[in-house]
């Protein structure tokens, strides 16, 4: 027995390596693949929409985004004789409505975020933050029909007031005097939709304001407003701008709420209070129902333009937010 034990081979030292095991390699591979799925999906969206829309884009060329006529002429047999597709009116309308929304939402959201970060007591704050998060979860169809049935009468009255007192400014002119379903009212509805996003991002950046700087300002005798004005707002400016860019992107891509509230008309309209406007996303929804295969291709091209536009806005927003973070003022 004793001899046997002695004769047993001495185990060679375990080989130490930093090489991951097979299971880990597999794990890392699968997770990386999953992580790259967002890239793949976004890439596929761009590829398929360009594939479907490229015939129209070639034919219309640059006038697809500069002309504002959208017409399909059909002869008596139902054959398409002539088409012209131009998005200009819809693009202008999209940007106009989204800008109105941001102009309305930004001051309200920043004020609310400042209130939440610097004024509200903890218990009140928790309730209010819940309400804002809940508002972000409301479906857009809810905002759409609420805007149409409930907000419209009030908003029409506000529009008349603005027209009465500020009508000398060209964009507030209304001729003929139709106030319902205007870009302004759409902008108000969109503003209500993006307020929760802008508010929660602003609140987040305000909460990252360095505490020592706030305390230093108080120690120098600053009032609460001084602290907000001289410490919090300069520190958070980039984040707030980025947050409102995100809100802008949301507002530009909104379909259902705009479709229900806005009166879609194919002409470039800069009178924000006048009841005519456009929006690429709702154009797609509006035209899709009766569109023939050829027109559907044009809608795909429109979708591609909208996709690229929102991607661009998101990219700019991301860059702005990232720069604020690293600047570390």
């Amino acid at each position, binding site marked *: 027995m004793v001899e046997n034990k002695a004769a047993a081979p001495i185990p060679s030292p375990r080989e130490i390596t930093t090489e991951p095991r097979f*299971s*880990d390699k*597999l*794990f890392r591979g*699968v*997770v*990386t693949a*999953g*992580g790259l*799925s*967002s890239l793949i*999906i*976004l890439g*596929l*969206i761009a590829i*398929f*929409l360009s594939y479907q829309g490229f015939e129209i884009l070639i034919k219309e060329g640059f006038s697809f985004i500069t002309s504002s006529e959208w017409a399909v002429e059909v002869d008596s047999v139902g054959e398409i004789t002539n088409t012209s597709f131009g998005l200009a009116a819809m693009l202008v309308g999209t940007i106009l409505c989204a800008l109105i929304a941001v102009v309305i939402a930004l*001051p309200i959201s920043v*004020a*609310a975020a*400042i*209130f939440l970060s610097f*004024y509200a007591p903890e218990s009140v704050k928790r309730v*209010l933050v*819940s*309400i*804002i998060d*809940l508002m972000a*979860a*409301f*479906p857009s*169809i*809810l*905002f759409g*029909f*609420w805007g149409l049935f*409930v907000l419209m009468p009030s908003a029409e*009255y506000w529009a008349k*007031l603005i027209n009465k007192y500020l009508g000398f400014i060209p964009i507030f002119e209304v001729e003929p005097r139709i106030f319902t379903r205007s870009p302004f009212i759409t902008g108000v509805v969109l503003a209500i939709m993006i*307020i*929760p996003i802008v*508010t929660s991002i602003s609140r987040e950046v305000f909460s990252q304001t360095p505490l020592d700087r706030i305390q230093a300002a108080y120690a120098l005798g600053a*009032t609460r*407003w*001084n602290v907000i004005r001289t410490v919090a707002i300069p520190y958070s400016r980039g984040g707030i701008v980025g947050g409102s860019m995100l809100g802008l992107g949301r507002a530009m*891509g*909104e*379909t*259902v709420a705009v479709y229900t509230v806005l009166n879609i008309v194919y002409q470039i309209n800069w009178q924000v209070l006048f009841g005519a406007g456009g929006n690429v*996303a709702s154009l797609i*929804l509006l035209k899709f129902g009766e569109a023939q295969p050829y027109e559907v291709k044009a809608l*795909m091209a429109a*979708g591609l333009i*909208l*996709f690229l536009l*929102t*991607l661009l806005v*998101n*990219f700019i927003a*991301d860059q702005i937010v990232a720069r604020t973070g690293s600047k570390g003022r």
Partner: protein
Amino acid sequence: MTQSIAIPKPSRPWRPSPRERVINISLVLGSFLASYLIVLSTEMKGKLAYFFVFFAALAILNFALGLITKDWMSGKDQFFSVLMLLGMTLVILPTANILYTVFDRGRAGLHSGLLTNDMALSTPSDPITNGGLTHAIVGTFLLVLVALIASVPIGILTALYLTEIKGRFTRPIRFLVQAMSGVPSIVAGLFILSAVVYTVTQSYSGLVGSLSLTILMIPTIARTAEEVLNLIPNDLREAGVALGATQWRTVAMVVIPAARSGLITALILGVARIVGETAPILLLTGGGDKINLNPTQGAMGSLPFYIWKSFLLGTEESITRGWAGLFVLLVLVLFLFMLARFLGSRRAK
């Protein structure tokens, strides 16, 4: 040697004293009175006038108070605090109004058969008690279920990549997820239309609708799950590895179980994001009036489609039906939201 030590009573100097409270309340009351009097005596009228005159009066009175009791700076501070309160009020008012409107108008459309009948045998102008929402609720449930099955693995894997692997692509992927959450819902619908409907299925069905919802759901799940996984202390991961586990084992048996309720919250928020999504549903599902249990074939009804259709039909009854549909949808969203909150608060303990 027995000296008594005076223990100071704890005070809360930041709390408003009774005197300050009386002043604050009287300022608010004074503003009410001012808004009432000013609106009465001038041309202004309506709720809008009351609202803004009240806040203007409150701001000016607070400013005056600060100016009299302390100095110019303090007055300015008081003035702006009222402005911030105004902003907060403007955020809360629409939410309150939406909730009130939906519950108020939706009530008229509620009846005992709402959850047990479908709309197959009802016309738009039928009395409200005919027909119901079963097909829509079943359809929404199936759509969400299929979308969940498709998006949960992708969303969680993305979150795991961002938190566990932190490879070379972390920054671009974080941006792409962000960009994906900004993809307009109608574009997601068009994409599925061009990539799946025109090339493969050639027909509308619940399944293709779910696919478009998947695209909208992935970023919500991925971002929430990332936040949750980031909250898991690194000590746990290090402890797992130190015990000799591989990274795969550590993630599967330590990190994910620790984050479980948070991950479920992420799923619920994802569901809440898509449950009322309308635009892609309108493009893709066809929207039937009968119960359809097969997502791969045939038109599938859903709550958003039902609401949309009811409002567009435009008869008095169908508009009531639309509000009732919004009521049910809102209750669903509220329920999901509270569930997520509940799980989230349990996690924090």
